[in-house]
């Protein structure tokens, strides 16, 4: 059983690494890196689900026969969802970095335990 789902287990290990970074780290930049690693893990998991053995990319060219293309291509639906998700991840990183810059400007440090102590 474990042999058939081993790639999914590796994706879950990457997700666990990202969650560890979000909960246990004290530097704001390390928390941002944890969110980025979690996004990588989720994107990798969804593309792994859509893969077909010996598959080709879902782009039809003029020289390809249509019926064998249908039998050989990988699933196009997860790829369409992950494409927009990666660009949204970039927008989220920009927002988090803007908040981190603001925090540094107001409190003078990136350490969240210090920020919790100083009350404004």
């Amino acid at each position, binding site marked *: 059983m474990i042999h058939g789902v081993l790639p999914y287990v590796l994706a879950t290990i990457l997700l666990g690494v990202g969650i560890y970074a979000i909960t246990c780290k004290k530097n704001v930049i390390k928390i941002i890196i944890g969110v980025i690693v979690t996004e990588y893990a989720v994107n990798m998991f969804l593309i792994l689900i859509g893969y077909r053995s010996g598959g080709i*990319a879902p*782009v039809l060219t*003029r020289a390809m026969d249509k019926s064998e293309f249908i039998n050989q291509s990988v699933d196009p639906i997860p790829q369409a969802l992950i*494409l*927009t998700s990666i*660009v949204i991840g*970039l*927008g989220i990183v*920009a927002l988090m*970095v*803007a908040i981190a*810059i603001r925090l*540094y*400007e*107001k409190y*003078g440090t990136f350490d969240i335990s210090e920020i919790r102590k100083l009350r404004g």
Partner: protein
Amino acid sequence: MKGMSLIVREVTKLVAGFIFVYGIYIVLYGHLTPGGGFVGGVILACSFILLMLAFGKNFMDHVIKPWSLTVGDCVGALGFLLVALLGLIGGAFFLNFLAHPGDFRLLSGGAIPLSNIAIGVKVSACLAGVFVALSIFRGVRSGKE
């Protein structure tokens, strides 16, 4: 924000135009080869970020005004909605009413290249605007920049 050295500026003058044309190619041919509006938009934003890093913000203020990036953002979003509403001519929201398939050419996608262009304009203006906002932010307390 200052620019960079002479070598970087001369190489950027040669390369930035090619990156811009490549981004437009990926946006327009998104329905025939891998690509599309989102990827092409990020590549166009990359070319603008390269120009801004190489020449400095003060020079780029004369070339592209900062408020024009937010206007481009809104125009792209409204353009995408307009293409969706135009599908109502064919009978349903978002219906692709111009498609004539089987040709493998630019015009065979119908409303899909129009949507790609609108999304490309939106994403590129969006990300370039965020980079401009991040680079002109000058903190009050920190004097080092």
